[in-house]
């Protein structure tokens, strides 16, 4: 149940399109592929759009990417809904993506997930009411030797323990406070 998620497809601030720096990046990305094959740049550009759009892709963002690449919007929607890293629903500021596949499971990932659920008082798939944290359980992230682990933004947090989880949560809270 995504009861804590805002499902009305409206981001808090509407998608405004890319700035000059990002448009330059888009141009460079398109040039990596042969002429007429600009569709190949769709994933790298969706990554940029998602980053700018509070971690998820609303219809406006996807339509914008379609226009940049001269594609039909459906071509972007079908891609955005296929890949697990692309969110088509709002997420919290910090997304905990905890691995639950075999190698992490045998190293105690179930306990870590339960602990995070208790600590943040949300269930997997939900976002805290303050919009700060989302807990996502994910499948193998290729860090099996350093299990249990989670992805947080660009980084992997490995060898998780309850104490480490506490630290990470504290770290996010103070980072959020510093940004406000």
């Amino acid at each position: 149940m995504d009861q804590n998620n805002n499902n009305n497809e409206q981001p808090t601030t509407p998608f405004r399109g890319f700035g000059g720096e990002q448009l330059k990046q888009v141009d460079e990305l398109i040039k990596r592929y042969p002429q007429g094959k600009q569709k190949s740049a769709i994933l790298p550009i969706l990554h940029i759009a998602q980053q700018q759009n509070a971690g998820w892709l609303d219809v406006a963002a996807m339509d914008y990417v379609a226009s940049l690449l001269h594609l039909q919007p459906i071509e972007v929607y079908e891609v955005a809904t296929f890949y697990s890293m692309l969110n088509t629903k709002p997420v919290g500021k910090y997304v905990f993506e905890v691995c639950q596949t075999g190698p992490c499971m045998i190293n105690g990932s179930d306990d870590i997930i339960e602990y995070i659920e208790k600590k943040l008082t949300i269930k997997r798939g939900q976002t805290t009411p303050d919009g700060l944290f989302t807990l996502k359980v994910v499948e193998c992230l290729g860090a099996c030797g350093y299990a249990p682990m989670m992805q947080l933004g660009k980084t992997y947090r490995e060898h998780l323990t309850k104490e480490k989880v506490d630290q990470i949560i504290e770290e996010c809270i103070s980072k959020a406070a510093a940004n406000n």
Partner: protein
Amino acid sequence: MSKKLLLDKINVPGIKSFEVYRREGGYKSVEKALQMQPNDIVEEVKKSGLRGRGGAGFPTGMKWSFLAKPEGVARYLVCNADESEPGTFKDRYLMEFIPHLLIEGMIASSFALGSDVSYIYIRGEYDWVADILDEAIDEARKNGFIGNNILGSGFNFELYVHRGAGAYICGEETALLESLEGKRGLPRIKPPFPAVKGLWGCPTVVNNVETICAVVPIINDGGEAYSKIGIGRSTGTKLISACGNINKPGVYEIDMTISVEEFIYSDEYCGGIANGKKLKACIPGGSSVPILPANLLLKTAKGETRMMNYESLADGGFVTGSMMGSGGFIVLDEDQCVVKNTLTLARFYHHESCGQCSPCREGTGWMEKVLNKIDSGKGEMKDIDLLWDIQRRIEGNTICPLGDAAAWPVAAAIRHFRDEFEWHVLNPEECLKRNYGLAHYAEPLIPKGELV
């Protein structure tokens, strides 16, 4: 001590930088390759006996020689860095800690195959690793190893990192190409094979990260020298990413002449089972290969010592053997539950099925449900047979090998651990409180008639 070809320099301080990597002998294979005829490089790779390190173990030289070369049509080399097979984290290790080895391999291999523009398709989650590769590519470009007229050879070459966005299926080479073309990662029907019709319809070779890295020592020392390392058709070295209940999880380079027992118990490798526990089972080559109980893992059914190489790990076929696969070595101790472990793998394949073929799309979800039922103490005896039946109907009936990859772990778990499944059914309450334990899995093999 195994000979190291890929990881020998990984601990040199600063090896991530072009300067140190070059000083340590890096990029020599590019200098050498550019002096050679492209076809001669392909011949060296054939001679080396190198087999694809992504999991299938197909001879790389042969794959290269299949590449069609129609006049006036671009050819592509794409590196498969979409490492996603549970238990496997060796490619990340190479890319993160010695990125120039992959870049060097890509330049030399691209020259051999005639690819002027090549791509490294990396799984989206390895975001920071993609940055490391981008930086290494920039350095290589600044030093004249990427760009126009490399080292005055007339070879013009560009290399790009392309980040995926979370989809195990994109590790399947045709799904990877679809994804690189900006589409959903749906595997293609083969033939045509990528060697004839691959990226944007052009002839394409897709190789795993470790495979491309292995081309560097092959060019430097010659295919024959490489083929002399290892044993039989398991030539060269192989990276094994070891995880699970062991003292020293990590990435190890082996020359395929050591035994499984040595690999697990020696301090040079896994360092034994963690917390003084006993070995129960192991998935030796990534989650999709058959799980083996301790007794079949350390010795083959014929009673021979099982070795860490392609042939020995596969000895006995799927009845009593397993596979080298991707080298994702998952060790389970006596406290682990095979039913639960199989459930997490079934759930993984259900989550990752692309949904094109009904046997896989429906079957993986069905297996997950039945396993969940047994794991939670609600199973019936007929569910075990049902599971067997479902996996059998998936295997071989799908466009790509994901169906097989989902079926095999379930089949092997039932084949070798049927009594543990039955115990769950017969002890619905107890199975929620404790695990089945080591049982007889570590005992010496007793011939028990015909195995399924």
